[in-house]
């Protein structure tokens, strides 16, 4: 990526935080599975990786060969990061992340896994616990200590609430952990009573909970889409539309008034749609959402709701400007790249917006994240 471009535009020295980038954890999967607590499962993983050939990584569910992000080889950076990594001093993922941070002029990058985004659909509920625990241990021990600019939102085994609470307690004060992540692709109601202790535990840490979107082509309605383009466009918004609807209408913001939520990688255009839709219906059916003290859209634009921008839909600049206004983007929007995925956004997508003043650009590109995550802006 061209750092030179950022120098020319004058924001190379701005404080910039990318709240959603990825690494490909499966490249290091045998290493990660060696962190599995359960000795039998860990041994199974070792045997699997030692003896099976031509198979996907141990224990991971997902869509196997349906990963068409590269558009048939047209967009190569997600399918294969071909950059050479010669240094043996630190992990390969540290080097790749640092290069991306340099290219995007970042001060901090929040790294998420990639194939693990499907774990919420795993048929073995306990496997989400085993693998997320192993990943979090590996990430916080092997990757994060190498660079204070690389930070994470700890992946929660959301389908097993007790284990998720334990994860919060264990990682709340680990260096580099700035919040907690629920992978949104799952058939779980976020307002279920079994999650109240989890939200309480997260609220007490003062750190946010993020709902990181994903797609699920096997979802019966999305299975009618014959293209990755259609399925991906809808899938990454649909899961968060459902979770946000349940989150707001069941009064989670009223039950946990200090709990901050981040809605990640669904873009932005779904937000004004859902605001208008829920407001319209809520007025007529208020008795079904009795915990609410204000309109759904007022919660969704309040100080406890944050949004990551990528992939920022901008074909209609008037609509985008209206969206920014509706979500109070100046204070609630967070820049995200989604690097190295095919639809990644550079900081230019914010810097070049004609309707934003400079302070708003600085807020969105980094200062909002600094405030939310308590990051050192003098780093």
């Amino acid at each position, binding site marked *: 990526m061209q750092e030179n471009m950022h120098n020319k535009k004058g924001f190379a020295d701005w404080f910039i935080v990318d709240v959603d980038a990825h690494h490909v954890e499966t490249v290091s999967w045998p290493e990660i599975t060696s962190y599995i607590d359960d000795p039998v499962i860990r041994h199974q993983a070792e045997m699997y990786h030692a003896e099976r050939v031509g198979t996907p990584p141990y224990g991971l569910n997902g869509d196997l060969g349906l990963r068409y992000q590269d558009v048939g080889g047209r967009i190569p950076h997600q399918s294969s990061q071909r950059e050479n990594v010669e240094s043996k001093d630190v992990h390969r993922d540290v080097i790749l992340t640092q290069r991306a941070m340099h290219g995007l002029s970042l001060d901090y990058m929040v790294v998420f896994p990639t194939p693990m985004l499907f774990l919420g659909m795993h048929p073995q509920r306990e496997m989400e616990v085993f693998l997320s625990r192993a990943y979090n241990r590996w990430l916080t021990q092997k990757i994060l200590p190498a660079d204070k600019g690389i930070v994470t939102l700890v992946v929660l085994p959301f389908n097993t609430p007790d284990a998720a609470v334990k994860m919060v307690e264990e990682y709340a004060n680990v260096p580099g952990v700035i919040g907690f992540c629920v992978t949104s692709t799952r058939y779980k109601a976020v307002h279920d009573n079994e999650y109240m202790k989890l939200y309480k535990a997260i609220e007490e840490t003062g750190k946010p909970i993020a709902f990181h979107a994903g797609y699920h082509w096997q979802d019966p309605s999305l299975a009618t889409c014959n293209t990755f383009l259609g399925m991906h466009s809808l899938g990454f918004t649909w899961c968060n539309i459902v979770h946000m609807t349940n989150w707001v209408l069941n009064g989670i913001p009223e039950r946990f008034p200090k709990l901050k939520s981040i809605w990640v990688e669904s873009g932005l255009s779904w937000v004004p749609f859902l605001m208008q839709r829920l407001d319209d219906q*809520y007025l007529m059916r208020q008795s079904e959402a009795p*915990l609410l003290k204000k309109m759904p859209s007022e919660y969704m634009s309040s100080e406890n709701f944050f949004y990551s921008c990528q992939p920022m839909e901008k074909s209609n600049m008037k609509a985008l400007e209206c969206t920014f206004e509706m979500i109070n983007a100046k204070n609630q929007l967070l820049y995200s790249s989604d690097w190295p995925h095919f639809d990644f956004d550079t900081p230019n997508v914010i810097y070049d917006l004609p309707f934003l003043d400079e302070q708003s650009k600085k807020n969105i590109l980094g200062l909002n994240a600094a405030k939310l995550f308590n990051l050192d802006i003098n780093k």
Partner: protein
Amino acid sequence: MNIVIKNYNFLLIFEGNLNLETFHVGSVQEFKDRDKKVLILNDSEVGIFRMGKDFFAYENLCPHQGGPVCQGRLFSLVKENLDDNSKSHGRLYDENNLNIVCPWHGLEFDIRTGKHPGNPKIKLKSFPIKVDREEVYVTIK
């Protein structure tokens, strides 16, 4: 004042000298507790609501889409039954708060405040109402 009252189902129509701004709409005992009547006073349709000793009057016009809000049904406010751990145990009626529900789209309005429970900016137009020696009077402005 020579007033004839006709009852067309739920809508009571006043006929007579209606040039006055303040209308005698009946005696207290003519209004059931937690109930209402809808009257036509001059050009205004007005809902008269009784909550114990208190009376309230609102224009029979829903601010949502113009429905005959005061001709709707009365329901107690619904509350979520949360325990100390924020877990929900279903919903309850709050008998201390009564809502009039517009029959067109279901918008609810607190009888005491005239406001929508979830959006106080959406409220019914109220009229001054008073009880004097067990007689009820509404002033139409």
